[in-house]
């Protein structure tokens, strides 16, 4: 919704002529309701529901085999769900064949028609709709200009680069004003550099045409950049759906936390407004409120949310967890990566005691403690260097507390 409002406020200076002519409708462009699907014995989708708002771009993120492609094919009408509904602009299209749904699919292979030139590919949707020649030509001209392929209009698909082919594929679907655009791993076949470049281009293009779109990807970076919202799929069910900020910073499940970016995971118990992990106690009044006393929980936090310090003075907003020892220091390009072993077996320091007095782990003879991953930005890493064996105090700026169901059926 946030993104939608942002788009609406931007639209003053943008050409919105490609938006479908139903701006006044409820605001939900596409809606998937309780979709389930099996292939033979294997369950592919289980009760998946989500909405795509007008002008919004939603990313379905999941590993291969998570069922994301199947959802896309079901929305497009290329696959039938076993149960559930697909609703496009308020109309139930579950039983309509693909050609009557008016959706645009951008296939991973682009699926351009090999015996047609660029302009014929783009004009195909209007041709089979028997639109007058003049209208067809004008539309094709405008779209070719929109995707900046003026020099290539007479070429055949095999004469174009991957990025150009993809732009043709997008223009081909925009020609008939689709209700929703569906992108099936749109950048899968491209090299890393083109991928980043093209994804910005498409983002800008979508802002311009304001057609609601659904992307499919397994690339988290892509998801964070392309999506107004991200839906994380795991093994056929929806784990979490929200803005990139929500899913990244407030993951609701362990899967989301670990699939989207790196995450450290510690098992503990919720007691008296803290998360107790071994002898360490992390103050978490707000985060533990929804758990009952003594309930088993998972503490999930990102490597960049860990703050460390050689004395007990952790920066403002950083909640003290425990002490630890630096085990490894790696430099990984843009940031520094540390492996730190946490001391979770010794008693917590009393306030007046010298902060690092009790650390006994990680002697050459004994390597104990729980390893976690910590990353620090380059300026910070340069300003204050750590080396293997340094004893540090460890705190967290941000973390999530999740219920620890050991059995999936308790979910």
């Amino acid at each position: 919704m946030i993104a939608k409002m942002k788009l609406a406020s931007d639209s003053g200076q943008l050409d919105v002529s490609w938006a479908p002519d139903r701006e006044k409708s409820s605001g939900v462009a596409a809606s998937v309701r309780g979709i389930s699907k099996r292939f033979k014995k294997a369950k592919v989708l289980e009760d998946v529901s989500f909405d795509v708002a007008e002008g919004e771009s939603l990313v379905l993120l999941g590993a291969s085999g998570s069922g994301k492609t199947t959802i896309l094919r079901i929305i497009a009408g290329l696959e039938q769900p076993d149960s559930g509904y697909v609703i496009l602009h308020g109309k139930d299209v579950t039983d309509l064949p693909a050609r009557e749904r008016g959706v645009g699919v951008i296939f991973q292979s682009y699926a351009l028609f090999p015996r047609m030139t660029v302009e014929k590919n783009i004009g195909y949707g209007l041709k089979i709709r028997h639109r007058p020649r003049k209208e067809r030509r004008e539309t094709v001209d405008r779209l070719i200009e929109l995707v900046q392929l003026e020099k290539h209009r007479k070429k055949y698909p095999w004469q174009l680069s991957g990025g150009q082919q993809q732009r043709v594929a997008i223009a081909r679907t925009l020609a008939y004003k689709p209700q929703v655009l569906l992108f099936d791993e749109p950048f899968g076949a491209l090299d890393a550099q083109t991928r980043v470049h093209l994804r910005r281009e498409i983002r800008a293009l979508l802002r311009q045409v304001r057609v609601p779109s659904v992307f499919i990807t397994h690339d988290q970076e892509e998801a964070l950049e392309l999506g107004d919202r991200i839906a994380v799929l795991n093994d056929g069910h929806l784990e979490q759906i929200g803005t990139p900020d929500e899913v990244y910073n407030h993951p609701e499940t362990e899967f989301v936390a670990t699939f989207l970016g790196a995450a450290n995971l510690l098992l503990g118990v919720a007691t008296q407004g803290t998360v107790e992990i071994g002898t360490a106690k992390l103050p978490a009044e707000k985060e533990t409120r929804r758990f009952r006393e003594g309930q088993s929980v998972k503490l999930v936090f990102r490597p960049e949310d860990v703050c460390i310090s050689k004395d007990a003075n952790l920066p403002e907003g950083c909640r003290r967890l425990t002490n630890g020892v630096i085990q490894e220091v790696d430099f990984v390009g843009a940031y520094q990566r540390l492996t730190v072993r946490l001391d979770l077996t010794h008693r917590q320091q009393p306030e007046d005691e010298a902060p690092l007095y009790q650390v006994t782990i990680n002697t050459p003879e004994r390597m104990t403690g729980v390893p976690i991953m910590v990353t620090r930005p380059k300026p910070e890493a340069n300003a204050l260097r750590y080396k293997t064996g340094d004893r540090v105090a460890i705190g967290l700026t941000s973390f999530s507390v999740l219920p620890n169901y050991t059995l999936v059926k308790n979910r």
Partner: protein
Amino acid sequence: MKLPAIRHVRGFDVARPLSIGAMLGIMLPLVLLPLLSIFIFGTSKGLGVFWSSLVAPEAVFALKLSIVTSFWATAFNVLFGLFAAYVLSRYDFWGRNAVIVTISLPTAIPTAVAGFSLLLLWGKYGMIGRYFSEDQQIMFTPFAIILANIFVTFPLAFGVIKPVFDTMSRSLEEASATIGATRWQTFWHVTLPSLRGAIVSGALLTFARAVGEFGSTILVSGNLAGRTQTAPFISLRNSTKAKSKRQMRSPSCWLCSHS
């Protein structure tokens, strides 16, 4: 002991002329010389004789009949071959593989046996033919020749078209469907253009094979000169009766050169 590499002797790739030479050397007695001998033999008494035997009424009729029957067999094979390939690669059903094998079976059957089987079915006393009245009999008419041609050459057309269907990306047809095309529009605008090459080569193969078809035609055509005698039989009759060798030459030359 290490053998010296024979590729690239002073920058010259020995493998290239050697392989080309070997290929031509093997082809020579097997393919090239037999073809050449027909031409030499056919034109040994001069081009004039060659021409006159080519335009002899019987020969002209036989050639025409061959071409016409082959044309219809080709037309049918391409159309039905397309249809069968479409059905067999797009729909999965029980016994599909059995059908695919069955279609290719006629290539393994001696063509004379193929002709005989047609006789057993359509002949005057055949399984179906017996229910036809005297003047409805199709054996020993040009139709019989077309039937025999279809029977023998269908696997060729099918065999060329089917693999192209199989390897063609489904997403092209799916893209066309999502754009809004009906099945027929998709087939006409998207599928068919991609099959152009396969259709042309399938048609050429079928036609070439049908024009020269002998074994099955001899059984079903009746070989009636001026009525159902096709080009290959002119050659055969003339050579077996040995009345005039020259008569057989032209049609066979023609048959060779056209294919």
